[in-house]
């Protein structure tokens, strides 16, 4: 039998498009099906992509000009004790921003234009993209996945199917690889999109940090939403996203609990905070032009912390799960994009090899499971408990635990976590060993993204001179608050690092 395609990718999101492009670059015939009318219709953002995603993600993103909204130097955490008395603590002292390893120099983005940018790149590489198409079922022959059946009933065959649907993973469930995720590991978030008067005012109000507000005593801050609710503000170019989230079920993971009345609570929480929080009233609200958008969406929050969900098989004959569909979201940062990118690249790698050998059996595709399960960065991301414990700290009013969780989850304490530190350094060394100019390219990435951001455009095909890049670098480091003395040290430190990587001292 001759298949219609080598690879069918279900879902044109961060993982799907990265995998599709990589397969197409290797000469495979690739189809991406997307249920939305346009790529990005169904994505909901409110996100900072942490820097490790850009550093170790797909080349074409690192070396390209993706549409970023605002560089993000860190997170400012407010610990709100009593909103009416304006009694709060800024837990900034434990996050000297430029030192926060995971968030520092990440980028705040709108997912829609970012996915569209990725889709353009994928199509240029030869990927066929079909929007307005739902992959409703899998074609199965004797336990082997042979393609998809669309909502129109059309059968499209392929050697390999990549399920990049997102956390709902309906095809993964149909294939019997997993059950639906437990509700206490999924959160529902509201995403308010506020347009600001101008980009300049956004700079002044937020600077380059995302802001999280944690309610210490619910009764003194907002109607009880159950423990664990937070407010997150992600500043964009001349707008920002205001997000609140709560788990679909309030319980310990795997334990008994109750389903909160989320519609009522999320609305009340928003009303309460926007009418009582003084920073909102005095500093933020006067600069808002209008509420431009409001939507709600579910996202993975603690999926990988659930014992059963953590160890599901990620592949079967002819099918691999990528990103959220596989439960690969960062439980530490609630960010699935870097892990989606990493797993997409592994899935593409395995698919390319499997098709070359003409062996798409479950046994061969097991290689994908092994690659993902042995990737130290993915392992670190999917096992972090600080975010989860932070919710417990809120619930039990343990302020020391709360500070500790922020310090280790988002602060410089991340470096004291060997899981992260070792994974980060060894991955960087690997990159330098493979390509000696890797560090230089990373430097260029920061400078280029910074120039593009400052020019309020992207993808603009700028020819940069070395002088431009150097200036941009310096400006960028100043923005991050890195003092001049340290800036001068970066080059010698880089040189030592490269030598260490090459000589295997690491």
């Amino acid at each position: 039998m001759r298949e219609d395609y080598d690879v069918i990718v279900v879902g044109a999101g961060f993982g799907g498009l990265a995998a599709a492009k990589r397969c197409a670059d290797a000469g495979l015939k690739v189809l991406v099906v997307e249920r939305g009318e346009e790529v990005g219709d169904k994505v909901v953002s409110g996100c900072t992509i942490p820097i490790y995603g850009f550093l170790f993600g797909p080349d074409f993103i690192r070396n390209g000009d993706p549409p970023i909204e605002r560089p993000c130097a860190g997170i400012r955490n407010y610990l709100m004790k009593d909103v009416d008395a304006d009694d709060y603590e800024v837990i900034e002292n434990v996050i000297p921003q430029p030192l926060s390893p995971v968030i520092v120099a990440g980028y705040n983005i709108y997912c829609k234009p970012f996915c569209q940018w990725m889709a353009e790149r994928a199509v240029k590489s030869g990927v066929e993209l079909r929007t307005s198409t739902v992959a409703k079922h899998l074609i199965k022959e004797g336990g082997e996945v042979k393609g998809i059946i669309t909502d129109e009933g059309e059968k499209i065959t392929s050697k390999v199917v990549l399920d990049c649907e997102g956390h709902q993973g309906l095809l993964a469930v149909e294939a019997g690889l997993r059950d639906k995720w437990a509700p206490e590991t999924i959160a529902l978030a509201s995403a308010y999109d506020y347009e600001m008067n101008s980009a300049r005012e956004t700079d002044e109000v937020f600077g380059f940090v995302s802001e999280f507000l944690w309610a210490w005593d619910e009764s003194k801050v907002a109607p009880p939403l159950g423990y664990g609710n937070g407010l997150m503000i992600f500043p964009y170019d001349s707008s920002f996203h205001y997000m609140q989230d709560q788990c679909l079920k309030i319980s310990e993971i795997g334990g008994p609990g109750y389903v909160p009345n989320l519609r009522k609570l999320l609305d009340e929480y928003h009303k309460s905070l926007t009418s009582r929080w003084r920073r909102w009233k005095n500093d933020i609200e006067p600069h808002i032009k209008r509420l431009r958008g409001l939507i709600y969406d579910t996202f993975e929050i603690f999926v990988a912390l659930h014992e059963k969900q953590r160890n599901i098989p990620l592949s079967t004959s002819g099918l691999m799960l990528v990103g959220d569909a596989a439960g690969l979201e960062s439980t530490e940062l609630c960010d699935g994009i870097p892990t989606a990118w990493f797993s997409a690249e592994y899935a593409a790698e395995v698919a390319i090899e499997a098709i070359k050998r003409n062996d798409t059996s479950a046994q061969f595709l097991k290689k994908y499971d092994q690659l993902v399960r042995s990737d130290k960065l993915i392992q670190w991301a999917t096992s972090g408990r600080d975010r989860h414990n932070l919710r417990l700290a809120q619930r039990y009013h343990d302020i020391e635990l709360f500070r500790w969780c922020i310090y280790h989850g988002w602060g410089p304490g991340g470096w004291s976590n060997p899981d992260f530190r070792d994974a980060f350094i060894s991955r960087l060394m690997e990159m330098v060993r493979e390509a000696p100019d890797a560090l230089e390219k990373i430097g260029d990435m920061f400078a280029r993204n910074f120039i593009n951001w400052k020019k309020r455009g992207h993808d603009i095909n700028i020819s940069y001179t070395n002088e431009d890049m150097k200036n941009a670098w310096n400006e960028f480091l100043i923005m991050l608050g890195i003092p001049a003395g340290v800036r001068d040290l970066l080059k010698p430190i880089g040189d030592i690092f490269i030598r260490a990587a090459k000589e295997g001292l690491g």
Partner: protein
Amino acid sequence: MGLKLLGPVARRGERLKKSLSIKNGWLSAELCGKMHMRRSERFPGVVWKGDAGNFISIDEEKCVGCANCVKVCMGECFEIANGKARVKSLDFCIECAACMYVCETGAIKFSWPKGGTGYKFDWG
């Protein structure tokens, strides 16, 4: 900084105008009618397009009437009648599948709406 622009500049914010003729973020009611679009005051910036079909169904025999789906649904899609949940209207469903997750007996069957239908959000 002496940058040379070689290609067209894609500015942020322009994508909206390109994809839909939206004035101030809102589609005119007239245009909505013509294009089979719905919008809700509760959800600024979101439009629902086309006939999405009955993509969420409830197995009456499995349903125990716990109303979890009613509690988590932002689009007010469900109601309880005679001790059982039923789908009231999927007009403003945001396709998040929260109902599927909280249904402990597995009575709710969630699938994707027809391709190209359902909600579109421009600030995602």
